[in-house]
Structures are given as structure tokens and as C-alpha cells.
């Protein structure tokens, strides 16, 4: 146990758990709490980047793709449920604003607008919630696997890999925008209402969804810690520095890169699905190049070598974005760019690096003195 979770990691996990499960829910109103949920969904992506980029040295500039795929999977399920609810809607009800009359009832509204009369085959799995949950994990992972095999087996890496993932982000967002009838196009998938009849738009639902998100990110942190502390984690770090040495120690390096890239994609997919649930829509702008790069910035500012840093990075940058862009909307991008440059130049290990140098030693000292005190008490001194 102590090998997987050394004291410092246990303390970090505890601090974050207290913050997410007690301090934030007590301190913030429903609106702000919902914002934190949204930020936390980005931290899944940043966490995946800590494993891929921080540990494995693989910089992906296309994590938004996997986030978007997870988000779209969830949105497709919710949209079908919303469409089912509109079956049997009458003109009179529409005038009261209760529902919408469609020329083909039971299909998503944007399909109806595009004069489609039948649900495309790839929508069929999303009639079932368990299947949707599986798709949230499988679709991003499968795409990451295909890209990973195509790139890493051919030993494409570094900058070239980053550029290709960025191109992937551009391709997917163009694909979505160009297919309004099939997947909602530029408007995204909106007007999501219920999950198995449970209205996700109410304040109560938003509070509950916040806790679901918070617990899942804590769980994701625990799983990531286990992966990083296993020998596979050591191999990733070894690979980052001396890829050839790992290869000549008998490892097929490509398979390890594929694994960690898929793992990061699966995390991003979960984040995307939670984003859709928390926010109530998904939009192609969350798939493209800009959000993908933003995610890298969350990770870098939080500290790319720290799984906890990823969460704080996503929260800190997004809070700054919210506050700053309310006051000076046009300056925000410059501020974020400045933050990124500052991190790279002044403290390359981000917030986590600062914490490790200035805060953690004190906390560890306190914990150690507490431990000796309790052991003194228990031994009767």
C-alpha cells in the first residue's frame, strides 16, 4: 500500500477530497457549483495528459477529440430520450411551449430540420443507457488505438505526433460541422432534458451531478496513481528519457505508448460525457484545435508531472478565465498565453512544482510529528 500511495500522495488525495466534497459544495451556490463541475470535466483530460505527456513524453494536441467523442456519445443518448418525449405532441401543446411537433416524430430535432426520416444506424446503440456508457469509453479508446497503432508502430513521435493529433482535432470538428443532419452540425446537440426521466436541468440535479463528477475524478486519480506506480509507470518514465534503452531492455515501446494514449483518451471520454450531463449540451467547438490546446495549458499550468496538479490546473485556469473574461473579454487569450509562457519559463513543473517545494515539506513535517505523538501516546510514554 505504502508503495502505491506514499504519505505525500495520500495527503494530496485527502486535501483534494475534502476540498471537492466538503469545502466547495458548502462555499458555492448552485450556479458556481455547476461551473466547478464543468471545470472538473476538463481535469479528466488534463489528467490523461499528465500520464501521456508528463510521464510518457507523448504530447497530444488533439485530446479535445476524445473529450468530444465522449461528450457526443452521452449527448446522443440524451437527445434520443428528448426526441422520444416529443412523440405524440399536438399543435396545441406546441403553442403552449410544452413540446415540439416534428414531421418525423421520435428522431432528434436537427434530423427533422434536415428532412431526414430515419435514424442513422450509428445512433442505434444510443437507445440503451448501458450501451451508451460502454460507448463513452470504447469510442475514444478505439480511435486512440487506431491512431496509436498507425503512429507509434511506425515510430512517429514528438512534434510529428503532436501535429498529427492536432490535424485530427481539425478533421473531426469539420466532420461534425459538415454533417448537420447526422450529428447536429455547427449548433451541436442541444436541448437535452432528461436521463431516464430524471430532469438534469434542475438545481438538485446539478448538485448531484457535481458530486458524481467529483467522486469520479477522485476515482480517476486513484486509478492513475496505481498505473503510474506500477512497473508500467516506470517504463513510461524510462521511455521518456531513453527510448532506445527501453527497447533494448526487451520492451516493445510502441505498445506502451499505445496503452497510455488509449488510457488518456478513455479518461477524456469520461470527462466529455460528464461535461454533456453537467452543461446540458455538446458543441463542435469542444472538439477542435482551440480546446485541445487549452487542455494542454491546464495540464502545463497545473504541473505536467503531477496527477493532482492536473485537477488544480484545470480549476485555476478556468476560474481565472471566468473572472477575467467577465471583466476584459478581449484580453483573456493574451492573459492565458502569458500564463503559459510564464509557466514554461519560470516554473516548468507548474503549480504542483511550487506546491512540492514550498508547501509539501511543511505538511509532511506536521504529519510526521503527529505520527510520533500518537505512537508515543499509544506506547504509553
Amino acid at each position, binding site marked *: 500500500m505504502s*508503495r502505491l500511495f506514499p504519505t505525500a500522495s495520500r495527503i494530496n488525495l485527502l486535501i483534494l477530497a475534502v476540498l471537492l466534497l466538503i469545502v466547495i459544495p458548502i462555499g458555492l451556490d448552485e450556479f458556481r457549483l455547476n461551473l466547478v463541475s464543468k471545470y472538473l470535466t476538463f481535469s479528466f483530460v488534463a489528467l490523461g495528459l499528465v500520464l501521456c505527456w508528463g510521464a510518457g513524453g507523448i504530447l497530444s494536441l488533439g485530446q479535445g477529440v476524445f473529450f468530444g467523442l465522449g461528450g457526443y456519445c452521452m449527448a446522443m443518448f440524451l437527445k434520443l430520450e428528448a426526441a422520444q418525449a416529443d412523440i405524440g405532441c399536438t399543435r396545441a401543446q406546441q403553442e403552449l411551449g410544452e413540446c415540439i411537433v416534428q414531421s418525423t416524430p421520435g428522431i432528434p430535432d436537427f434530423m427533422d430540420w434536415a428532412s431526414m426520416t430515419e435514424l442513422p444506424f450509428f445512433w442505434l446503440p444510443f437507445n440503451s443507457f448501458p450501451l451508451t456508457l460502454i460507448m463513452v469509453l470504447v469510442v475514444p479508446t478505439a480511435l486512440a488505438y487506431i491512431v496509436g497503432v498507425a503512429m507509434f508502430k511506425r515510430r512517429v513521435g514528438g512534434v510529428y505526433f503532436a501535429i498529427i493529433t492536432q490535424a485530427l482535432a481539425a478533421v473531426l470538428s469539420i466532420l461534425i460541422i459538415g454533417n448537420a443532419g447526422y450529428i447536429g452540425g455547427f449548433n451541436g446537440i442541444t436541448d437535452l432534458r432528461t436521463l431516464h426521466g430524471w430532469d438534469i436541468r434542475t438545481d438538485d440535479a446539478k448538485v448531484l451531478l457535481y458530486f458524481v463528477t467529483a467522486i469520479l475524478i477522485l476515482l480517476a486519480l486513484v486509478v492513475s496513481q496505481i*498505473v503510474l506506480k*506500477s*512497473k*508500467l509507470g*516506470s*517504463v513510461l*518514465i*524510462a521511455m*521518456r*528519457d*531513453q527510448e*532506445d*534503452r*527501453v*527497447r*533494448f*531492455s*526487451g*520492451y*516493445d*515501446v510502441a*505498445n*506502451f505508448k499505445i*496503452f497510455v494514449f488509449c488510457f488518456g483518451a478513455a479518461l477524456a471520454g469520461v470527462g466529455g460525457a460528464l461535461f454533456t450531463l453537467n452543461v446540458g449540451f455538446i458543441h463542435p467547438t469542444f472538439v477542435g484545435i482551440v480546446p485541445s490546446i487549452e487542455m494542454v495549458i491546464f495540464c502545463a499550468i497545473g504541473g505536467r508531472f503531477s496527477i493532482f496538479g492536473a485537477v488544480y490546473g484545470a480549476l485555476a485556469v478556468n476560474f481565472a478565465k471566468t473572472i477575467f473574461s467577465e471583466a476584459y473579454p478581449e484580453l483573456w487569450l493574451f492573459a492565458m498565453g502569458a500564463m503559459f509562457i510564464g509557466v514554461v519559463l519560470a516554473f516548468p513543473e507548474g503549480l504542483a512544482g511550487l506546491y512540492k517545494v514550498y508547501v509539501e515539506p511543511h505538511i509532511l513535517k506536521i504529519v510526521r510529528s503527529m505520527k510520533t505523538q500518537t505512537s508515543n501516546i499509544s506506547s504509553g510514554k
Partner: protein
Amino acid sequence: MELNTSNQDYVLSVENLTVSFDGFKVVDDLSFKIKKNELRVIIGPNGAGKTTVLDLISGKTPATSGSVKFQNKEIMKMKEHEIVHAGIGRKFQTPSIFEDLTVFENLEISFPRGRNVFGALFFKRDEEVKARALEIAEIIYLKDAMDQSAASLSHGQKQWLEIGMLLIQDPDLLMLDEPVAGMSASERVKTAELLNKISKGRSVIVIEHDMKFVEDIAHWVTVLHQGRVLSEGLMEDVQKDPKVIEVYLGHS
């Protein structure tokens, strides 16, 4: 003396090996054989193709033509990690160890178990691994540095650690590229001892520049020049060979 030995006695046989980069033949129709339990030193002036030969055997560089047989099995088409699994270990010229990990972790990664993705994920650090790592650390003079970060080791210790990482895999053929480069005089002596110790029960190929060191360890020497074997034989005979003196020893 080689005429009477059958193929079975060779751990490695390189035949007509050629590699050219942009038409320039770095290794040119090269053939040599390594016997079981032999310690062979390959020397030659800069650009003779010494490191390239190791690259070809270990699968790092694909050959243009020719054949490399390891324990009578063709390994030319195998991938690097498969060649390692077959029993060939290779040390690089500059020490390549994992600086962000401890000495123990460096050895643990090299331990020949759990080398696929899920094997590594569920790898257990059991007594066997710990005992074996300790055993190797003792041989490479790093017993007291097990929990130290590898980055904090001296240059010579890093070279030893990399040798240790190969030893823990227990290879049948060990290939060392300039193992004493950048070492102090006392480290060289210790490395020579180390080499004599670890060459028992396995074949070793050493590439070396340092003639004093070669005299200390070698009995059978191959001299490469412009990608070909210039001379081969006992160290004292090779040193007297006028061709060798002209291209190599004469200059140094």
C-alpha cells in the same frame, strides 16, 4: 584452428553483412564468428563501422544484405525487443540509463519478466526481483546506491549500471560499446575486473578505443577498417600486423 569447429560452437555468425547509407558502404561484406564463452574485442579507427556492426546485430539499423545468425537462428528480420528476448544484450556508447528512476528501479525494469503492457501493469516486486537486483548491484559495485537516483551517479557508475541492467537479463551474448569511455584510471581497472567476471559462461563483444584496456582484457581481436575485417587474431599478433600499424596503431 577454425576449420575444425562445427557451427554448433558459434553463438554468433555474421556473414556477408553489408549496409550502405546513401550509397556509401559503412559495413562492407563483413563476416566474422563469435564462439561460445568467447570475449572478443573489436577495434578500429574512427568511422571503421564498429558501432554500426552492433546496430546491425541488435536490430537498430536494418542491413542492406547479408545474414546474422544467433545460436543458428537468423535474427536479421527480428525486432529489437525480440532480439533481446532471444538473448542478446547491448550497451550503448554513452551511458543510457533512466536518470529519473532509482538504481533499483533501473535494474527492476531490466529484469526479464512482465515485459508486455499488462505484464508490466500487474508486475509484482517480489523477493526474487529484489534478491536478483541485489546480486547484480554487488557485481557492479553499486550495492550501497540502490535507493539513490540514477542521475546522482558518477559517469563511471552509470556505465556500470548499464552493464548491470544487461546482466540482470542474463544474456548469452553481451555487446558493449566502449565501456571505459570517460572513466578514471581506477574505474578502468575495476571495469576490466568486472568484464573478466561477467564474461564467464557467456560470450562478450567489446568495442574499444583504449589500447591499454584492450591489452588487459582481450585474447582475440578483430580489427575493422572501412567496414571490412582488416586483421583478426591474438592481440600480440595483431599489434605486429603492418596493415594494422599503418591504419590504426601508427596514428595513435
